[in-house]
């Protein structure tokens, strides 16, 4: 297989397989959760489940003061790499072109040097997150193989993307192929690991807010 053939496979069939597993995986996971159902609450309500649930979906993005003070590093580093991932995935001009190809519409991009800088910051934030995970007593205790695996598949597209953009080491088609392959790995793994929180956070926050809202508490 030549370099170009490899890139074509990765961009073509490889990408299609990854996207199918990604979408099917997410549907399966949501079905697994929602089909379990939930009993109707028979206690007299004091507030609304719906408004409590919707409120918490939004408010849980903003920690209370005490929590921020106690978990400053986790929260700040978390914010940085989540925003960084959003910017590098969705606001990088070549990515937007790819999205336009797949879904048919596009949106404005950020200047390339800005995205480049954000990628570096995101990589540093993820490295710091790993260092924190390996040194903090609680995080070290909680950490399992899956935590390390998802860390790796999250940082790989950033690193391979950065290298491909700066054409370090190999020729452009190979670098691009490796970058796309690392994204495909992320897509395939996401639905079956804790990375699924990218979608299920809406459900869990809603349930939390709904349970509290029913009792008249804003959570």
């Amino acid at each position: 297989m030549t370099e170009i053939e490899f890139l074509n496979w990765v961009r073509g069939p490889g990408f299609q397989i990854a996207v199918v597993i990604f979408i099917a995986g997410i549907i399966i996971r949501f079905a697994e959760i929602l089909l379990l159902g939930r009993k109707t609450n028979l206690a007299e309500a004091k507030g609304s489940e719906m408004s409590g649930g919707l409120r918490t979906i939004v408010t849980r993005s903003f920690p209370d003061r005490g929590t921020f003070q106690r978990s400053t590093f986790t929260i700040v580093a978390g914010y940085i790499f989540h925003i960084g991932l959003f910017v590098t995935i969705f606001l990088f001009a070549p990515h937007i072109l790819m999205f336009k190809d797949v879904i048919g519409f596009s949106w404005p991009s950020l200047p390339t040097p800005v995205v480049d800088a954000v990628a570096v910051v995101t990589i540093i934030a993820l490295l710091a997150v790993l260092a924190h995970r390996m040194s903090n007593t609680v995080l070290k205790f909680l950490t399992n193989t899956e935590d390390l695996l998802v860390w790796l598949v999250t940082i790989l597209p950033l690193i391979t993307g950065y290298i491909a953009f700066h054409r370090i080491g190999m020729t452009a088609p190979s670098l691009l192929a490796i970058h796309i392959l690392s994204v495909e790995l992320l897509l395939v793994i996401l639905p079956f690991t804790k990375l699924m929180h990218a979608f299920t956070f809406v459900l869990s926050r809603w349930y939390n807010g709904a349970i509290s809202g029913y009792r008249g508490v804003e959570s």
Partner: protein
Amino acid sequence: MSASLEKGINALKEQVDSTVASFFSSCVHCGICSEACLFYTETGCPTSTPIHKAEPLRRIWKSEYTLLGRVGKMFGLTAKVDEEMLTKWETRVYDNCTLCGRCSMVCPMGIDIALLIRKTREGMAAAGHAPEDLIGATKRAVTIGSPMGVKLPALLAQIKHVEKDTGLKIPLDVEGAEYMLLLSSMEIMNFPEFIGAIAKIFTKAGVSWTISSEAFEATNSGIQIGVADIAAELVQRIVDAAEKLKVKTVISPECGHAYMAIRWEGPNLVGKPFSFKVRHILEILDEFRKDGRLKITGKETQRLTYHDPCQISRRGGVIEQPRKLIDMFSDNFVEMPDHGKMNWCCGAGGGVSSNERADEVRLKVFQRKKDQLDEIKPDAIVSACSNCRIHLEDGLEEYNMDIPLLSLTETLAEHLAE
């Protein structure tokens, strides 16, 4: 697999629903919940990380209700729940958690971790891994009617004393009364003044009320230990009594988990909505206040603060009422840092105070409450849960602090205009 382990695993399976599945699917192991839990902040012990306490339930969810987990199980790759694990988790789930729910308020994914631990207890208890003291309390609650073994004659004796002290009649088994008051054993035995305070306030407010001789116990050991059948049986006794006396409202007294048990879990445990309302005593008193039924005289000049009982405030939704009521008799009220729905637990709820094995740790984690109190230096603490009250007194004594504990209801009664 032993029969008891199988029972435990089945009980855990029964706990899994869409909330549980969405919660476990969302956990990213960020560890933020540990910093919300006084059993971690005051001990530094990572096994007290809230989400970790629900690990038995997570394993059952993963291995039985996820595709990947089921596949992994076939190859022996999915982690199992066994006797050894449950033995390890017993102290984590019962001694080092008060189900206070503070973790549920800070999780960035919105996981209601306290609910997961509450559900984990159902499996632990079914598998025979509940603390002996809680098993004893639960047995007494079922056979005698009270976890502390308080029988009707003891209540009648206390009522007699209260009637003599106050000169007021304590109405027993009055059919058609508007309110039926429940009491915790702790109130009957340690704080009978509470009954007198109610008599005084309700007489002044001009409302009819009663105590049922058949169901006066408010606490529910089934909730604390995590045995839904027993919890339901204890709730049913109250339902039967309330229906028999045809009361409009059942009042949960100054007790945290009793309110959770009858107000929020009760109808779900017995499987049908109640034909009567359930209110916490603070909600009733606040209604009296709004209706102008409370005439107050004299103000407390000492610096007062309010300790929010977790099951009444954060988990119960009664947060504003105590503040409005305290305002009626105090000009010098100060909030603790992290009050209301973010208050720190006293350290003895959720069955911890009934579990002698946890005595050492509950006094150790009281340091959190001490730090809160040190910041505001109150002259007295008002609260609305006799379990919090007893433990706060215990903790203050342990840490050589001299701050009296006041019941909100009793203090209000003292300030009623003649």
